[in-house]
């Protein structure tokens, strides 16, 4: 029964980890930075809209993990939204396939200003292994102005958190860019 599981969770404390080895050693520190930056700069939560513009789905798998109880993205005031109209940040993965190009641009146009674009994964940076294919136009910057890149194939959840933190901190230091 569900109550038994809930009781066990209450007894054992949350599964959310500040610093689980091996690849997320600084999530705790990251969490603190992210929280203060997000709140001081934005004074509210930041909404992310993920767009797959040609990924192999490896990047999506790791982004999905951020929502789980281990990384618990929402504790940082970051959350995924279902529509670009509700988003502050577009988190874009994959090379831009020629077929997704128009849909990616329309998604960006539907996102209200001010907005940021994060190119996530090696493919999103410059096309990755798919560079030179007839079917892609290149990395995300072949379609949209990119504010930040997060490297990796795919980047680990910890690397993604680190990247998002950088984004918020950078904008906390300089006036908001509006495109």
């Amino acid at each position: 029964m569900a109550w038994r599981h809930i009781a066990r969770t209450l007894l054992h404390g949350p599964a959310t980890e500040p610093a689980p080895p091996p690849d997320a050693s600084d999530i705790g520190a990251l969490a603190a930075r992210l929280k203060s930056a997000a709140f001081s700069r934005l004074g509210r939560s930041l909404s992310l809209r993920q767009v797959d513009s040609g990924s192999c789905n490896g990047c999506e798998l790791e982004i999905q993990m951020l929502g789980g109880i281990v990384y618990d993205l929402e504790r940082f005031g970051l959350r995924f939204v279902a529509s670009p109209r509700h988003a502050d940040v577009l988190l874009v993965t994959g090379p831009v396939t020629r077929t997704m190009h128009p849909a990616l641009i329309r998604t960006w146009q539907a996102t209200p200003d001010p907005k940021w674009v994060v190119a996530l994964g090696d493919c999103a940076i410059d096309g990755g292994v798919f560079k030179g294919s007839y079917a892609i136009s290149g990395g995300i910057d072949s379609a949209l102005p990119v504010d930040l890149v997060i490297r990796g194939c795919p980047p680990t959840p910890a690397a993604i958190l680190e990247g998002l933190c950088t984004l918020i901190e950078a904008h906390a230091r300089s006036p908001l860019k509006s495109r």
Partner: protein
Amino acid sequence: MNALALLHAAPTLPCAPFPRRLLSQQDWALLAAHLAAEPGLDLLAMWADPTHIHALFHDPDSADIIPVSTAVEVGLYPALSPARPAAAWFERMIRDLWGHTAADGTDQRPWLDHGHWPATPPLATRPLPNLAAPEPLEFLPFEGEGLHQIAVGPVHAGIIEPGHFRFTCNGETVVRLEIRLGYLHKGTLGLLRGKSPRAAARFAARLSGDSTVAHALAFAHAAEAACAVAAPPRAAHLRAVMAELERLANHLGDIGAIVNDASFPLLQARFAWHREAVLRTAHTCFGHRLMMDAIIPGGCACDLAETGPDAIALLLDTLQTELPGLIRLYDDTASLVDRMQGTGTLTPELAARFAAGGVIGRASARPFDARRIPGYAPYDRLDVTIPQFDHGDVDARVRVRLAELAETTRLLRLLLETLPQGPIALPLPMATAEGIGWSEGFRGDIWHWLRLEGGLITAAFLADPSWRQWPLLEAAIECNIVADFPLCNKSFNCSYSGVDL
């Protein structure tokens, strides 16, 4: 003469380990006609090269795998889609990539080509510049009182891949779903050409990221078959460890995602936690959470870390301790089970017609599992148990996954106990040959075909199991309510990137 006799009587061309049959166009047309009367022969995949059409069959009675080809004549070949509905998507893809048209094919609309490529057909010997403006997608017509359409995608609301779903509904009830994919076409097959299998393996590993191990494995098997080299025993074992870890991670993720779409996040949280544990263990063992590029033609790129066996043992102990309680929670939550049972039912007849593999097939009375095919080391010595359910609904697909978690746990322990010593990779000779390789990914049976000349790839095809599963989702959702689509879709979890090539 029946279809099988026709295939067996045809002359063969060298292709390891399954000789490729060559049929004249008349005999191919005859084959298509016989297939209509012989539903037993499974069509696993279809593809092409600039001059020929290829099809891969499986005979369930003899367990034979039979590749067969015919020459394209003035751009045409006789269609298989009237006899095998699963051929329709393949035929549309073949026309988009190579320009060969299936005469009398059941659907002549484009598939991968949405009109945005600079030159078409891209894999033909001489593609022509594409000067036409892209046209809107054409959907199947519908008529009837009170029907309306819901268009979803390509950009979806969740963190998933892009595709377009066109629902035709009567009130809340789905009358028809039409799936249009192709948005993720990255030109993978074109990128493989002119590369050595070692260099090309990176593309196979990125056909569908969630199956990176399984695709890299099928690709390595194909290259090794062509080169007449077998990976060393230790490499074969390590590959199976990776493949089972990948299965574990994906099944855990899928079960969590399914129950989450029935609004039961408590279970989802636990399954996602275990999935994270598998990914970390994979990182400990092989240095990458998804184990990307760990399998190469000839063997493995890295050995199991020294701490690997203990990490896996701990992972499995933790999972086995909690899993029975989680399954009991699933069973005891009536409101959850009520959403699962009778939802998105796929009949065994339909699953058989499409030769559905993997969880989807096994939940609809089709016990096929590529790990059972002879010659797939080390599984040929492991006696894999294949769970099977007959009711074909979301619940059946959850139960197959749950049963496979237990079996995969057993296999992993066995694999670690019997891990042989020795080298983990061999060099491949520069061969001029053809090979077919397969693997059983978490979605089902994967088939790769390669043609090498002087050690370089001149033609290839990578068939994800989703080709034969997506169309069944269209069928399974019929007469369900729109609100149950996410549930059905997650229970199928077909790959977009895997079929978009």
